[in-house]
């Protein structure tokens, strides 16, 4: 496998990491809470795609808006039912509220749907392959990357251009000032959880076309997303995007050219090097 091939496949994976990380960083940016159940949200979205595909014959890409809507609702419900109650609690209690939610959702999935590895089977994009200048790209991976880029770009473009989006950004900037301008921070927090969860809703649908679906599937993606978010700087959507892509590329190149078993070691090492040089991440407020 040559360099270009490894680079391209790393970039494609990186776009999906970037979308997952964008959802995480959006929640953090608005209310400074790290969602340790983020991976489990992703897992639920992947199961949703699986059930749509198996029982309703709905292609994951067609059902994608349904995933986004369902996860948006889940995010809002989680905010009102759980997060709102720990807003003023110490950081550790907040960590464990979302961590407990993660354990709860993951084991509930295992209880309901058993620990089996499932695949969706035939979808629109499966089995397709595109060759460009000697670089092969599989259909599912290309679709996932394209979907992730479009969603992240849409988010990035819409936030400053709609009044709700501006209210959200204003709340992230300065809660008190935003509240004085008549923006209800409570609604904005709920919205941030909704949009953050909807991001993994989209990512889950995109991943489900080529990735196994099982109760623990979210953990590995969540860990990568934490690192991507911290790498880019907590709260910065653009930073999370850059961090996600960087991790995808590092993972792919070190897997191909150094040693597949050690690829995550390089991801974590790059994170440490970056934050030690820039303690608030690549694009965070220094």
């Amino acid at each position: 496998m040559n360099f270009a091939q490894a680079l391209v496949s790393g970039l494609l994976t990186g776009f999906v990491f970037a979308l997952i990380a964008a959802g995480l960083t959006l929640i953090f940016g608005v209310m400074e809470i790290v969602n340790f159940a983020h991976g489990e949200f992703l897992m639920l979205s992947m199961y949703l795609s699986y059930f749509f595909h198996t029982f309703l014959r709905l292609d994951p890409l067609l059902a994608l808006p349904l995933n986004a809507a369902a996860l948006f609702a889940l995010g809002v419900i989680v905010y009102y039912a759980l997060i709102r109650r720990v807003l003023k609690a110490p950081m550790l209690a907040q960590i464990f509220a979302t961590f407990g939610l993660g354990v709860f959702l993951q084991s509930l999935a295992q209880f309901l749907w058993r620990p089996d590895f499932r695949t969706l089977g035939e979808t629109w994009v499966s089995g397709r392959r595109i060759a460009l200048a000697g670089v092969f790209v599989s259909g599912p991976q290309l679709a996932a990357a394209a979907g992730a880029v479009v969603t992240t770009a849409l988010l990035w473009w819409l936030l400053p251009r709609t009044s709700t989006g501006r209210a959200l950004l204003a709340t992230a900037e300065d809660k008190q000032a935003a509240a004085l301008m008549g923006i209800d921070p409570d609604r904005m927090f709920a919205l941030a959880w909704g949009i953050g969860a909807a991001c993994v809703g989209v990512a889950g649908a995109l991943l489900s076309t080529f990735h196994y679906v099982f109760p623990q599937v979210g953990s590995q993606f969540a860990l990568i997303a934490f690192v991507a978010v911290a790498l880019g700087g907590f709260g910065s959507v653009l930073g999370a995007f850059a961090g996600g892509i960087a991790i995808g590329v590092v993972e792919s190149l070190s897997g191909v050219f150094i040693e597949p078993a050690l690829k995550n070691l390089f991801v974590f090492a790059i994170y440490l090097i970056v934050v030690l040089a820039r303690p608030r991440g690549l694009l965070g407020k220094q």
Partner: protein
Amino acid sequence: MKIVALVAAALVLVWPLIVRGPYPQHLMILVLLNALLGTAWNILGGFAGQISLGQAIFFGAGAYTSTLLAQHADVSPWLGLLAGAGVAVALAVAIGAPCFRLSGHYFAIATIALGEIAAIAVTNWDFAGGAVGLFLPVEGTGIAQMKFDDKRGYHYVLCALLALALGVTVWLRGARAGFYWRAIREDQAAARSAGVPATRYKLLAISVSAAFTAMAGTFYAQYVLFIDPPSVLPLSLSIQICLVAVLGGAGTLLGPLLGAAVLVPLSAATSVFLGGSGRSLDLVVYGALIMIIAVFEPSGLVGLGRRISATVSRNFARETP
């Protein structure tokens, strides 16, 4: 409150003498092990305010150092315990010196990253048994070998280690270090400007924390007689350690003990009553309970205990005018 603590301590000391079943004895050992790990975490996370989610590194350092020394040089586990603590302190300083420049979530995630690096590195390190793990050489039992025929010996070794950790915590908490740690935890910039050598005292906190965590690791290896990366180096262990201290009450002496005393029987009970199906219903309940405690007692069970004892003493005051 004091009387309750003394009664509990006495109960722990006589536990393996009055309770004969191996399973309740094992449960008490798990409680004490978690209490030791939580107490060690608490020095760094509770008192000095540096949230570590990578304590498994130190636990693994203790387990692997003593086991490798026993396998290759026939070194006694007691020396291995000290050597493991030494290795852990060296790692702690190597980790702390650069990473203490990070604050809040950045530090916490850096410790997660370091823990994962350690797990991957050991998994791919053939000398340390790689992914296969290591069996401990067993050459007789007795206090010199730190291996025992029944659980009573393990129980008292652990009691001694926990007493040592609590003693050191009490001593440091009342000494200059304790005041500096609290100042750093509340506002590091203000502490620095008041002349607190913050980095040096944070390094002290992580070193003490690492040493006791490594001792727990050495003990664990003697108790289970087999170690591999998933059992002594997983992220879930680091999170469990933090959970014990936080649910009990971070930054209090009794918090980690209370956390271990509640959390271990709780997860055992849910797995006994609900875990039989192998479908993790126990973890569903466990996750829900963590959320409930985080919502209703964000300062930990110590806060709940204080409220109850306040209510009780108020009622007593009313009855005996």
